[in-house]
């Protein structure tokens, strides 16, 4: 979407508007071509009025007899904006200051801003993420109105129900590829959910069936809730139990609170309510180092953001998170001799292919980078593993490696929490599956007795009696 709006440029391919090829360098180019975008985070000036915000960049000047004067003709501006707002039936009190109005109104201002610039294609990025249900309804009414006036609207959302309600046709994107292009009336929410998580690849894993239902609970979440920066509750009353030797899969359409959940589990976010109990110790809101020290291995989603630092060496990366352990640092000094030994040992044990052992992580392929993370997190023999999208973007061989390692860990009696939006992965690895929807665990199913249809239903927010509702 950033490409459509001129914020970034495609490396290949072309964009056509009305069968004419266009090439955008800045958002201004896009606006001139008739594309307007409403960002997820509004770009408004709080201290100016609605009218002034709409006109920002295209101010109307006094026109005297000698030509344009460098003063803003606010009366004329007001009339002009009012005309546009009447035309599209968008109710706004143009003289209010933006800082005084509600979020829903701010969004209307953003839309008005684009309409005033006479765009024909309107892109809305996650427009409902910050809105209350009533505001969402109003927005949808507005959008339908615009549609009737002949505007094209691109509505990007994670929320299936809204997409179903507002759209005429749907394009489903997964991992940077278009995987579905359908007419809204030909499809149901469950079907979309299934397409989104993918059912094309079926991975076979050799999973030994070891009964774990009678094992002790090693990890327990009690009523975990949290709020995001806007003060909206993004997780509510999460209750999870993981037993020794059990893999708990957490499925769900992306953006339903998995991010926040993993951040709380790994000490990057503070929970506002609830307790996390590990090995009968309360570890709620501990630091990441302390969590790791207690025996929890962590694999984050983004390999090059949280897991590894590309511009640091392999040996520096292989101790990250464990760099306070006495075997790698003593009296505040790093023991680089020991670290290099550890690196050489792990590189051999986990078969990490590297060209230059002293080089930076940036030289590694995705699969080898992931192996490096696995080596780091598995080497201290964790009693619990938290894995978020552990095979994201990997080739089949590396996926198999990661899966086998996770199963090995399970065999040793460790518990595993695996959060993934890849349903195939969840289905083939987990013993039990919890499904997240809208910041809640909407249902929990036994992995051996379920099917994609049932989970797809839960992911779309539809519960039935077979799953134990919480």
């Amino acid at each position: 979407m950033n490409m459509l709006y001129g914020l970034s440029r495609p490396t290949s391919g072309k964009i056509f508007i009305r069968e004419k090829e266009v090439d955008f360098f800045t958002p201004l180019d896009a606006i001139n071509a008739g594309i307007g975008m409403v960002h997820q985070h509004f770009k408004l000036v709080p201290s100016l009025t609605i009218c002034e915000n709409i006109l920002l960049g295209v101010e109307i000047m006094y026109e005297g007899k000698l030509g344009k004067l460098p003063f803003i003709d606010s009366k004329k501006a007001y009339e002009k904006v009012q005309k546009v707002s009447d035309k599209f039936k968008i109710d706004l009190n143009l003289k209010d200051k933006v800082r005084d109005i509600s979020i829903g109104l701010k969004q209307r201002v953003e839309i008005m801003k684009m309409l005033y610039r006479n765009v024909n294609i309107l892109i809305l990025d996650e427009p409902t993420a910050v809105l209350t249900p009533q505001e969402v309804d109003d927005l949808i009414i507005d959008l339908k109105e615009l549609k009737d006036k002949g505007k094209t609207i691109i509505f990007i959302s994670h929320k299936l129900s809204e997409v179903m309600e507002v759209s005429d046709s749907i394009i489903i994107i997964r991992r940077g590829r278009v995987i579905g292009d359908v007419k809204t009336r030909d499809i149901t929410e469950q079907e979309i959910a299934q397409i989104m998580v993918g059912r094309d690849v079926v991975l076979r894993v050799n999973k030994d069936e070891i009964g774990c239902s009678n094992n002790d609970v090693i990890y327990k979440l009690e009523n975990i809730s949290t709020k995001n920066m806007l003060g909206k509750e993004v997780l509510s009353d999460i209750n999870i139990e993981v037993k020794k030797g059990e893999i708990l899969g957490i499925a769900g359409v992306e953006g339903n609170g998995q991010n926040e959940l993993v951040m709380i589990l790994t000490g990057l976010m503070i929970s506002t309510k609830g307790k996390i109990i590990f090995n009968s110790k309360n570890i709620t809101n501990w630091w990441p180092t302390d969590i790791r020290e207690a025996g929890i291995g962590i694999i984050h989603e983004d390999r090059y953001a949280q897991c590894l630092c590309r511009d640091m060496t392999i040996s520096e990366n292989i101790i990250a998170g464990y760099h306070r352990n006495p075997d790698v640092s003593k009296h505040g000094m790093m023991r680089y001799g020991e670290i290099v030994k550890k690196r050489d040992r792990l590189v051999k044990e986990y078969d990490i292919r590297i060209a230059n052992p002293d080089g930076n992580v940036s030289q590694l392929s995705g699969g080898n980078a992931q192996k490096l993370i696995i080596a780091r997190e598995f080497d201290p023999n964790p009693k619990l593993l938290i894995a978020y999208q552990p095979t994201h973007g990997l080739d089949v061989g590396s996926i198999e490696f990661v899966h086998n390692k996770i199963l090995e860990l399970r065999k040793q009696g460790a518990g595993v929490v695996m959060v993934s939006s890849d349903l195939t992965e969840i289905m083939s690895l987990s013993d039990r599956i919890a499904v997240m929807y809208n910041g809640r665990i909407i249902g929990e199913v036994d992995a051996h007795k379920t099917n994609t249809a049932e989970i797809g239903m839960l992911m779309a927010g539809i519960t039935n009696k077979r799953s134990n509702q919480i």
Partner: protein
Amino acid sequence: MRKGKMFLLDILNSLLPLLSAFGIGAIIIILIGENPLTTYNIMFGKTLFEWNGFLKTLHFASPLILTGLAIAITFKASIFNMGVEGQLLVGGFFACVIGFCFEGLNPVVHVILGLLTGITCGMIFALIPAILKAYFKVNEIVVTLMLNYAAIEILRILTQTIYRDIGSGYVSTPTVAGSVMFNRIGGTRLTLFFPITIIVFVIMYIVFKKSRLGYEVTAVGKNPEFAEASGMNIKRKIIYIMLISGALSGLAGAGYMFSEKFKYTLDFSGNPGLGWDGMLIALLGRCSPIGIIIAAIFYSSLKTGGDSINIFTNVPKEIVSVIQGLTILFLSIRFINQNTKLFGNIMARFDSKKKKNEEV
């Protein structure tokens, strides 16, 4: 292989701006009617290739090494301490106050007390932006930059009122006591300050290459998200880094006071100040410790060489300031090119326009 290439690129990136600055400097010298080669020859010959001149250069390089380090370590953590100048002034001033307030102390005790005061004052002054940055997310560049002026003005008032030396014909504090003055070693310009600087340099080198703090700071600077996920307390690291930076600046001020100036005057740190020179040196030395030493010595030779030019040629001393300014200018061009895609974008735009024209 790749590392060697990067290293070469680094050297080239430092040398090119310098050469360009000297090139333009040469044009100006020609316009004055002098031979640039002889001028440059005198400037560097007197300061680098004559023993006494070289020691003088080292002497003036000492505060520059410290301020260069002070800025380089904050760059390493992707923090920008623009307040080295202010921290240096505050450190130097209060070291001076300790210097003239106590008379007849044991020289060792007095010197240690003076230096520690300088270090502490630099740290306290750096703590203000550090806390604002770590806990209130205030942009440290603005705060440190503006605090420089606050420091200059407050110290001016103190010098004009409470600490004014009545006997002096201009605004200055009294001269420090003899017990804190660093003696010249063996008739050269070198004093105790240079060995202290080298010791501090070695300590900082070890801290940044070998210690856990160095490791964590590198991680914070290179990838904050990674650092946080690995359990590093970023806020605390910011404070540590700023404190170290402030301590180095304070020490530079105190050392400069005891080895060269002996009293606080309004032009204590010169113009541009030692802190600003430090920034140039950090950039010129690509923030690597060895690079900083070389850059500091080179820069100091430029500064002291100005006097020789004045004596032996018709070129005014100010040519050195011109070259300094040009170096900063060219260095910043490199900087932009490296960190942003400014040129990439311009080129892309140009290409597509060309393409369109061809199609038409």
